[in-house]
């Protein structure tokens, strides 16, 4: 076999490898799809929930396809994102009525969920001494998943989620920055 043929074989094998990874990645994130459908069904803005949900699915697939550090962000990102999602979906069913009328508890649930997700991701990231790819992947994934539920009160709910997430992450990062540590384990 001459070198040109060998190069062709190598190129085909490389394509097969990438396709294999993409298929495996899509299958790995597929369990998110029923969650997206459930969130869209219970959401007052199903279009927005679908958009964020498909974004989470595509991002999860891409992270698993890339592999290495980004792929290790998928499970923590999904687990953290499930917290604001579930809180927001539950809160959306509860109404609080006052003299000015009734409203849901969606916004506080999004802020609290974002806070918990941010704190969880920060604690895990610091313990793992994760790199920027892990932080970016886990944060984006958890925010996209959480935003599916937080779109219940429009983009202000999503903004509340982002704010809560930032408040959850920043103190731990600051604590880490000011605390002297030993060499990585």
């Amino acid at each position, binding site marked *: 076999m001459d070198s040109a043929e*060998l190069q062709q*074989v190598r190129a085909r*094998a490389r394509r*097969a490898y990438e*396709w*294999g990874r993409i298929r495996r990645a899509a299958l790995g994130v597929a369990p998110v799809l029923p969650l997206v459908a459930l969130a869209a069904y219970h959401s007052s803005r199903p279009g927005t929930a679908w958009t964020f949900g498909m974004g989470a699915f595509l991002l999860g697939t891409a992270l698993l396809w890339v*592999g*290495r550090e980004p*792929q290790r962000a998928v499970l923590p990102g999904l687990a953290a994102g499930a917290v604001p999602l579930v809180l927001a979906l539950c809160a959306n069913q509860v109404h609080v009525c006052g003299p000015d009328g009734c409203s849901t508890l969606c916004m506080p649930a999004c802020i609290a969920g974002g806070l918990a997700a941010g704190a969880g991701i920060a604690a895990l990231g610091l313990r793992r001494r994760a790199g920027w790819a892990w932080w970016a992947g886990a944060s984006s994934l958890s925010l996209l998943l959480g935003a599916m539920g937080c779109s219940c009160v429009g983009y202000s709910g999503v903004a509340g989620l982002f704010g809560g997430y930032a408040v959850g992450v920043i103190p731990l990062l600051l604590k880490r920055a000011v605390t002297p540590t030993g060499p990585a384990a």
Partner: protein
Amino acid sequence: MNTLEDAELDAWMARLADGDRSAFDGVFERLHGPLNRLCLGFLGDEADAADATQEALQKVLERASDYDPARRALPWALALAGWECRTVARRRQRRREVPEAEAGVRPGADEEEAFAQRKLVEAAMAVMGTLSEQDRETLTATFWEEAGPVAGATFRKRRERALTRLRQAFWRIHGLG
């Protein structure tokens, strides 16, 4: 391939399974030769062996992300390649059956012997397909005289059990012991 090269291939394959693309060329280089030799041994024809090697390499690398670093990479790849050789052999048989029947060709003694040899290999591969993945890996490693997934006495016991199951399956399918 010696033990050091085996260990090196295991490490390259584990990195590739984790998504480290820089390990791709190393895995490709180390697998191409052994897979080609295996296919040539099974098929006896260089062109068919090249086709089978190409398809086997694609299959192995397509499944590279499923590779379990606790197992040896070469027997795993050879078992997949053996299966691919069987598929190519079947395809070739179907392709050649029709023209030979139409031409009424009577093969010579050497051709008959080669044909019988190929038939035996195909029959063995068909029986191999009924065995577990671990048995297939063990028998492929034995055939190829490579280090199996485990070493020493455990491997010998595993080989004996796999051979017994191969004989039983051969007898069950082809009526021969």
